[in-house]
């Protein structure tokens, strides 16, 4: 029992290492993952300022910052096994004695830590450039929501990773398909409640459906906690949103485990865990 626990902890740290340490060695991330997102944020900021509603600028900066996590889920969690298969890592992972959850866990922890550094850089620059005032009334609740959002989000990423396990280049298309639509339904650049105010009952269903993506509720709750003057734009109370996220996180992680076990078995039956020439 203890031996297995140690094995899986070491495996988790080992898999997280290239994401946390290795990825910092490529300084291009500062440009691609910190400065470029600021351009998109700036575009929305100027629209809101032009329309005379500058109070939403903070919403945009926070949403634009959190985009980094969704991109990380799509391209470094979901599509990751495709890349690993191409370079020959996947077969080495799959023949190692670690639990597959340690592998997914390492990818998730590494991805979350790596992306947090990029997100913090974007947030700090966004706050400074666009002169945002953040009011942290309940830092503990804010931290709990942020961490639970990441846990649920990376749980969802683990499901995606396992589902994508057997796919080749289709993984690329699937990730593309999940990019812009989620930017819209999760309200990355506007208050989620807009769906309800603009579309009525139908909008409520859109918001409820989008809540399956943890970023939707997490972002909504964090906005309420950081911009208390705009509390009226929140969809649900932050504590209720935290409760939902607390349910989603273990459910997603459990589903990822089942899904990966099933798809690994299928991959072994069909010979799709490795490339032909490997």
């Amino acid at each position, binding site marked *: 029992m203890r031996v297995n626990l140690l094995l899986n902890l070491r495996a988790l740290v*080992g*898999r997280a*290492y290239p994401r946390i340490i*290795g990825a910092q060695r490529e300084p291009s991330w500062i440009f691609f993952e910190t400065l470029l997102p600021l351009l998109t944020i700036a575009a929305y900021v100027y629209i809101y300022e032009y329309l005379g509603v500058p109070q939403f600028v903070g919403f945009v900066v926070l949403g634009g910052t959190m985009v980094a996590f969704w991109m990380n889920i799509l391209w470094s969690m979901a599509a990751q096994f495709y890349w690993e298969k191409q370079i*020959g890592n996947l*077969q080495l992972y799959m*023949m190692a004695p670690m639990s597959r959850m340690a592998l997914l866990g390492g990818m998730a922890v590494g991805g979350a830590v790596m992306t947090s550094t990029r997100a913090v850089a974007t947030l700090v620059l966004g706050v400074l450039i666009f002169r945002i005032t953040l009011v942290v009334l309940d830092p503990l609740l804010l931290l709990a929501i942020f961490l639970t959002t990441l846990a649920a989000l990376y749980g969802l990423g683990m499901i995606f990773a396992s589902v994508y396990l057997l796919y080749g280049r289709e993984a690329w298309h699937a990730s593309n398909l999940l990019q812009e639509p989620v930017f819209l339904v999760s309200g990355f650049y506007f208050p989620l409640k807009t769906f309800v105010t603009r579309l009525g009952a139908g909008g409520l269903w859109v918001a409820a459906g989008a809540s399956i993506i943890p970023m939707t509720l997490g972002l909504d709750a964090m906005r309420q906690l950081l911009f208390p003057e705009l509390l009226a734009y929140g969809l649900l109370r932050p504590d209720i949103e935290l409760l939902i996220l607390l349910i989603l996180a273990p459910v997603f992680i459990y589903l990822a485990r089942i899904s990966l076990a099933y798809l690994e078995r*299928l991959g072994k039956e069909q010979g799709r865990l490795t490339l032909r020439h490997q």
Partner: protein
Amino acid sequence: MEAAIATRNLTRVFGGKRRRLQRKREPSEKRVVALDSVNLEIPHGELFGLLGPNGAGKTTLIKILATLLLPTSGEAYVAGYDVAKDPFPIRKRINMVTGGETSGYGLLTTRENVWMFSQFYGMPSRQVKKVIDLLAEEFDLQERMDAKVRTLSTGERQKMNMIRGFVTDPEIIFLDEPTLGLDVTAARSIRGFIKKWIQEQKGRTVLLTTHDMMEADELCDRIAIIDRGRILACDSPEGLKRLIKKDVTLKIETDRLKDTSVFRSIPGVRNFAVSENPKGRSMTTTFILEDDAPIADIMSEVLRQGSRVHSLKKTEPTLEEVFISLVGRGLD
């Protein structure tokens, strides 16, 4: 004591029917029998070679034994555990290195890459560091251990892969063409290490697949010749050579021949293989003959086709001739 590796009627078929989760408009793959009723028993401590051309089923066999692929039928056991039912105890005891492998992450150093893979086997970092240093010295790679992997040459990269495979001190290691594409020096270094490791680490088992007859002859205790998924012969290199000892091996270098199929009809010709010489317009044909009698007929046929004979020699049987005798073609 059970064998390190055992297979019973092991068969693996690819394609031929629609896969689960396959899209309807995607055509079914052609049915290919990659392994056909393979029976092998490899005791602990043996360096066992699998010799066969591309597509013979060598890699498929290794993938099944490494728990990466399920058999279609039959059974396979590694360290006494069933690969289909009990993969986890097997995984603790095995490792694998493949020729031309590009695993790892280019941004990490050689040392970090090896360390990372060792963590998937639960090795304590302090212990790993010592083993990595020892293996780096064995492979003469000390100076490149802190270089980023993307800066390594092909030979250095393969040495790193070898260190990765051996760092976990596996009971059984699968080496799938580990010297593929390497220069003579790098290949010699890897062969030297394999030889030393199996001698020093008593009870460890190596399953080596190779294209290289000399490598198989030099390293392996026993060799199985595999073609189209079937084991055609299995014995020590000497035992295999004895199979054709009483046969005559004849190598003739000639101008290009218009038709080589006629040699099949010459009485006393057991088998032959043709290889085009890389430079010039000549070719070498290796014949396995029952005795000397067909030589005159072969020469007559060569001359009848208007071809010049550059050289002709009778040779002692090597593994290459055994292979030609059994398979009916060379490895190239």
